């Protein structure tokens, strides 16, 4: 199955896809921003500050999703020795890091009007900060070791250690008394959020996912060309 995902075979798709993904992203983001900033109602407790949720929550979801995907791909890549999966993981990381930083910064901005402070060493916030450090370690490891066996091993170890933090982030609001509110959306037990707020939230999440796809495709193409440049040197 993996042979269908070889870089040589899929480059014709990955090199053409970014412009279509960018167009779709701009359309979805425009709808999401209009809904989030104009049409969605204010919260009865938090007032208009609740609108920060439309960038904070999708950013947090996407960064967690990307780190989980990176870990899964790295483990599979390491077990079955598939270099392309490492290339995919490496290309996913920059957008994951940026989304993680967005989640922390927008959370901090949201914290000031609702909690009265920019920062608290709360379980959820601290565990998200730790995830940023894992993203940085992961990217620095690639920078130090380049594309060789040592890089595959070290980055896989970093992701395995980092993934332990992901369920801690998810359940921190249930396990400890935190300033951070518990999750309003649960796939299994339904959500406590009204559809007028759910629609912009899901639209913004779709826009963020498209943006990470766009960045992934551009980064993946760049990495492939980098490899081909080395190939030309050897000719």
């Amino acid at each position, binding site marked *: 199955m993996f042979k269908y995902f070889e*870089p*040589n075979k899929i*480059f*014709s798709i990955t*090199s053409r896809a970014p412009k279509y993904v960018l167009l779709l992203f701009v359309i979805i983001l425009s709808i999401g*921003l209009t809904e*989030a*900033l*104009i049409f969605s109602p*204010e919260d009865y407790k938090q*007032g*208009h*500050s609740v*609108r*920060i949720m439309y*960038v*904070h929550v999708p*950013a947090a979801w996407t960064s967690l999703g990307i780190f989980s995907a990176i870990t899964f791909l790295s483990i599979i890549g390491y077990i079955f020795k598939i270099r392309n999966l490492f290339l995919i993981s490496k290309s996913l990381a*920059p*957008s994951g890091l*940026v989304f993680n*930083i*967005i989640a922390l*910064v*927008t959370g901090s*901005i*949201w914290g*000031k*009007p609702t909690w009265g402070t920019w920062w608290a060493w709360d379980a959820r916030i601290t565990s998200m900060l730790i995830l940023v450090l894992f993203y940085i370690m992961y990217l620095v490891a690639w920078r130090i070791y380049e594309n060789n066996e040592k890089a595959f091993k070290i980055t896989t170890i970093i992701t395995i250690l980092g993934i332990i933090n992901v369920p801690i982030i998810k359940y921190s609001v249930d396990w400890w008394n935190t300033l951070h509110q518990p999750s309003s959306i649960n796939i299994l037990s339904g959500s406590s959020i009204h559809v007028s707020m759910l629609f912009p939230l899901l639209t913004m999440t779709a826009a963020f996912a498209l*943006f990470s796809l*766009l*960045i992934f495709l*551009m*980064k993946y*193409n*760049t990495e*492939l*060309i*980098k490899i*081909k*440049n080395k190939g*030309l*040197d050897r*000719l």
Partner: protein
Amino acid sequence: MINEILLMDGYGLYVWTAFVFTLLSFVSLYLVIKIQYIKETNKFVSKFGTLNSERSAFAKSQKINREILYNISKI
């Protein structure tokens, strides 16, 4: 109406700062990755230009190299 959207009952500064920070992060990341992409493709073209006809023909026999050159012509 415009004032209401901008001020948001005193929360405008927080809300707009969060959204502007997010969009600026998007634009910055996009530009950084785009610059890296252009730099690598330019490097590829200059290296390709230094190859003699035999090596150039061999390199062109690989589909991915042809694709890269095709995409560069469209940048």
